[in-house]
């Protein structure tokens, strides 16, 4: 490759991957919509702050409702950063390069917001600091706070380190940027000049982060599953809850990444970078993790279903043929079994069909968290008597639903901002992989 070719290709890559970094009408409308929706939801939360958790439908028996199901979902979705970047990345799968930043962005956004979701479930949110002042290390909540914070910091670093080189390139090469944005990039790029020493430091750091990320990610969702599994209630009292949650998290996260890939490819015109091959492979990843999840589902329901201990029998009866049966079967068949069957065929791993399957999987993943959290509490060991009907059957309220939607809006805002102001696909790494060894930094 001659110098000119090299330059041409590199300039093209730079322009392809950064042309979306500009504030346009679409972006403003979208952000305006998100902001207004968020404000509406925050108003709902202000009502809860003033009058107490009673504005939600949760009561003494179903005491953890939408908020906690949402929390579990957010922790689950954030786990994908670890699967894509760390597990598959360390194995050395080269095709992943354009997807890593998408996965890390999703991980950072969901992990950051998960902490806020759990605050919305507190009866006394103003006492949040007590968790640090009076924290008891024996409580799984302390473990959860510790590992989620750790995972968030690791994910943020893993998002930032590969961005250093990209920002160094952007503020030098992209002339259309406003000057304030250029100076932000310049500051954040930490004087990166693509020298071998700098690259060595960054690559080593990334590798260390990737290795640290695996135990941290496994911990966050395992510990989250223990919030349930450490109790003796039917439906929660399970020894496979850790891997059951972790494998389910990979399913939700893979679906989220595919949806984001489809959107970026279309809106940011990245067809040359997020190719059919990437969708095909992500389809295979989704099928694989779904199969693992199916295996744990089998363990989770078949084993207690075979023995039918008294409390388990009531619980499974409600799920399989009772009050929650419709939701249960739609989620299990539509969100797990059917997607696996479809994904076996190559034609369903094309971008559009894969998008539709992923949306079904992601929606089902949310309802699956509801099924894990709520029905168990509707049939405790001792009968529910002498209480109002709304204590017996849980019905979420409008305010509660709005407070549940708020974190999704927040995640969308974070993802929108990150992908608007930074290249969605790692610029420097892509150039390297296209054989451009040294980038002219002057």
């Amino acid at each position, binding site marked *: 490759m001659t110098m000119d070719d090299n330059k041409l290709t590199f300039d093209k890559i730079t322009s392809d991957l950064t042309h979306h970094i500009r504030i346009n009408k679409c972006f403003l409308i979208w952000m305006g919509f998100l902001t207004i929706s968020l404000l509406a939801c925050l108003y709902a939360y202000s009502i809860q702050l003033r*009058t*107490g*958790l*009673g504005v939600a439908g*949760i*009561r*003494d*028996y179903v*005491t*953890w409702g939408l908020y906690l199901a949402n929390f579990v979902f957010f922790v689950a979705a954030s786990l994908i950063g670890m699967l894509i970047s760390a597990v598959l990345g360390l194995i050395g799968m080269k095709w992943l390069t354009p997807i890593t930043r998408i996965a890390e962005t999703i991980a950072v956004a969901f992990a950051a917001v998960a902490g806020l979701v759990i605050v919305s*479930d*507190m*009866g*006394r*949110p103003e*006492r*949040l600091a*007590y*968790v640090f*002042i*009076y*924290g*008891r290390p*024996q*409580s*799984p*909540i*302390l473990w959860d706070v510790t590992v989620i914070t750790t995972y968030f910091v690791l994910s943020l670093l893993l998002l930032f380190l590969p961005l250093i080189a990209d920002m160094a390139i952007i503020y030098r090469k992209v002339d259309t940027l406003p000057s304030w944005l250029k100076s932000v990039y310049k500051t954040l790029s930490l004087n990166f000049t693509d020298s071998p020493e700098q690259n060595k430091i960054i690559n080593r750091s990334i590798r260390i982060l990737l290795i640290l990320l695996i135990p941290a990610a496994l911990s966050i969702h395992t510990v989250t599953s223990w*919030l*349930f599994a*450490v*109790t*003796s*209630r039917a439906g929660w009292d399970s020894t496979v809850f850790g891997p059951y949650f972790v494998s389910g998290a990979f399913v939700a996260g893979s679906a989220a990444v595919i949806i984001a890939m489809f959107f970026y490819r279309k809106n940011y015109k990245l067809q040359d970078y997020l190719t059919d091959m990437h969708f095909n492979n992500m389809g295979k990843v989704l099928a694989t993790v779904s199969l693992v999840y199916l295996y744990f589902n089998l363990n989770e329901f078949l084993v207690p279903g075979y023995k039918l201990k008294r409390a388990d029998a009531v619980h499974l009866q409600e799920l399989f043929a009772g009050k929650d049966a419709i939701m249960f079967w739609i989620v299990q068949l539509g969100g797990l079994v059917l997607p696996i069957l479809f994904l076996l065929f190559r034609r369903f791993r094309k971008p559009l069909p894969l998008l539709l399957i992923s949306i079904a999987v992601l929606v089902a993943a949310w309802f699956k968290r509801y099924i894990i959290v709520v029905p168990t*509490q509707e049939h*405790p*060991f*001792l*009968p*529910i*008597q*002498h*209480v*109002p*009907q*709304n*204590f017996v059957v849980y019905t979420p309220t409008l305010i509660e639903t709005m407070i549940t939607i708020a974190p999704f809006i927040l995640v969308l805002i974070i993802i929108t901002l990150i992908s608007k102001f930074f290249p969605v696909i790692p610029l420097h790494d892509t150039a390297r992989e296209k054989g451009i060894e040294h980038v002219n930094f002057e």
Partner: protein
Amino acid sequence: MEENNTPHSPNEIENSKISTRRNFLKNLGLAGVGVATGAAALYSGHIFEAKKEATGESKILLTQDGKLVSVDSLEVKALEKTGEDLRESMCRGGIPGRRWVMVTDLSRCRNARKCISACQDAHHLRPEQFHMNTLQMQDAPNTAPYNMPKNCQHCDNPPCVAVCPVDATYKRPDGIVLIENDRCIGCRFCMAACPYSARIFNWIEPKDSAKDQGLEYNAELNLPQKLGTISKCLFSADRLREGKLPYCVEACPNGVYYFGDENEDAVTNGTTKETVRLSKLLRDNGGYQLMPELGTKPRVYYLPPKNRLFPFEAANDATPEKV
């Protein structure tokens, strides 16, 4: 380096300089620490001597658990605690020497619900908030139904205490599981962990919160109740401190409840005021615990509903209104 005092290369000379400088600083630091320690020792010695001169006799004092002890007046120090601290430490310490225990005789319960109303009055609870609730039970399709008063079991291995992230609920040495609603963050993990559904939550402003405003918090009564925090049966720890039986035990018209001290092996019936041996009562009547297989080790025992004094009537009391 220290063995070889004649450096050969400029590099080594430089190293040796650094080394000497470092050693000097280290020694200086050590000397500083030494001087400070010596001064502190001298000063504390001086204080000790100054105190010694002031007194010198022994004093006779009454301890918290009612013993008279003789203490050298040198050792007597005023507690630098506020009244609130003291009350809290007394509260967490429990009532010394006691192991409270409750026995509920199911053969005598006719669902009069007097225990429930006495309890709800004492703790300012709404009609749907139960520290104590009488459940209509039927263990199997062919077995007879019975009424079962159910309160916090005050487990010796309490799952609720284990999961609390902020030590807001705790087990006292006298067996009672208490709550500190000044501390509770309202996460409700304890409610999820309790297999007996014994805990309730203040979802909305508590019933008497306007009336109770300004009342000093009493953890043994859990009053005033606070929005966004947990409440539950406290074995009427406030009454026990006064040497009285719990509210529910006293209110029962049918002699269902026995309450007492496991250490004394004696329990008193709240209705008849008859005191009996705990071990004999449990042995003679086939006493049992609720769900002992969960390993929670409850402090509430039940006597089976045999030879019942009253026929079972399905409860038709009004369901409380939606809250």
